[in-house]
């Protein structure tokens, strides 16, 4: 099976042993407004795609928070995104008509302080061909939470830059990710 989240749902052949590797994990021992995986160029020779599996909660004094995904530390207006969001009563779609500031926006991921205790949001982020220098870095997420602010969403986005990926930053826009939030980075190998 192809382990990328959405591709996996479509079925397929079982991945060969060793084609999907854990590269790094960050589990917060104190709250933090952002998490960064850096030195990703070290993986460029061995991996074709990257995936991040995410479990998080925000300390924002509200129901739910939003998150930016940023590449190579770029917080400029060099991103765009689309999403499809289910709220339990309706399905909405949002998008940017042009460049979007500060990162790829995920609005579905993180519960916050007024949501039930111990409830966390979850997500998978797939980044395709992140080390290619002829393509904008393009990503997609499947993320959701079942809490007071329940949401499920599909997001796609791009960083309008062809630079090889060197870092990924996850930024809690309205607060900080709480202790126990976890971000794990995986690599999907290219064929030999």
């Amino acid at each position, binding site marked *: 099976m192809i382990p990328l989240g959405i591709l996996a749902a479509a*079925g397929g052949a*079982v991945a060969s042993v060793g084609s999907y590797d854990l590269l790094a994990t960050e589990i917060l021992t104190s709250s933090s407004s952002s998490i960064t995986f850096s030195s990703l160029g070290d993986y460029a020779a061995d991996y074709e795609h990257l995936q991040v599996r995410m479990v998080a909660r925000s300390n924002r004094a509200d129901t739910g928070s939003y998150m930016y995904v940023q590449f190579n530390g770029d917080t400029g207006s060099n991103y765009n995104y689309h999403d499809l969001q*289910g709220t*339990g009563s*309706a399905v909405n779609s949002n998008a940017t008509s042009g460049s979007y500031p500060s990162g790829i926006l995920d609005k579905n991921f993180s519960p916050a302080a007024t949501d039930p205790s111990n409830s966390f949001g979850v997500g998978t982020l797939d980044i395709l061909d992140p080390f290619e220098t002829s393509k904008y870095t393009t990503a997609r997420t499947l993320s959701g939470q079942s809490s007071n602010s329940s949401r499920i969403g599909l997001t796609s986005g791009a960083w309008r830059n062809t630079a090889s990926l060197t870092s990924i930053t996850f930024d809690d826009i309205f607060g900080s990710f709480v202790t126990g939030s976890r971000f794990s980075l995986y690599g999907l190998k290219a064929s030999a």
Partner: protein
Amino acid sequence: MPTPTYIPLQTITLGSSASSVTFASIPQTYRDLVLVMFSKSVGSPTAANLKIWFNGDTGSNYSNLRMYGNGSSALSGTGSTTFFESWLDSTAEFTATNIQIMDYSAADKHKTALTRANLSSLQVQASTHRWASTSAISSIEIESSDNGTDLFAVGSTFSLYAIEA
């Protein structure tokens, strides 16, 4: 140091129809689980419910939210009777379902998951789910209906994978 992961734990392929399938004694040495199901039902209705419980808990400790398209509308709804709700066809088509259960062995979190489910004759769905328990998941029970009259068909497959973090 990269660590190979996505470990196959068990695959169940039905040689005879069954009302439920259980993964028991799930090891606690991993971080996430991925449950991949390709299943259909046999029974009088053309569509039966597919439901999931953890650790034998059939109480009111579950919530789920789904977003789905049926060919004419995009809809969203919620449920509270089971961790997961979807549809099975009893005519010809199998439902392809992939459930990502995150931090299943953690004792400081409710258990939350993401699902993509496809039944091409009926709908395509994305959903999220929460079991309001901090207990580690040690067993998963998958049922074909809530009334015991529908069965998983011969050839239905259920595979469980584990991911380290």
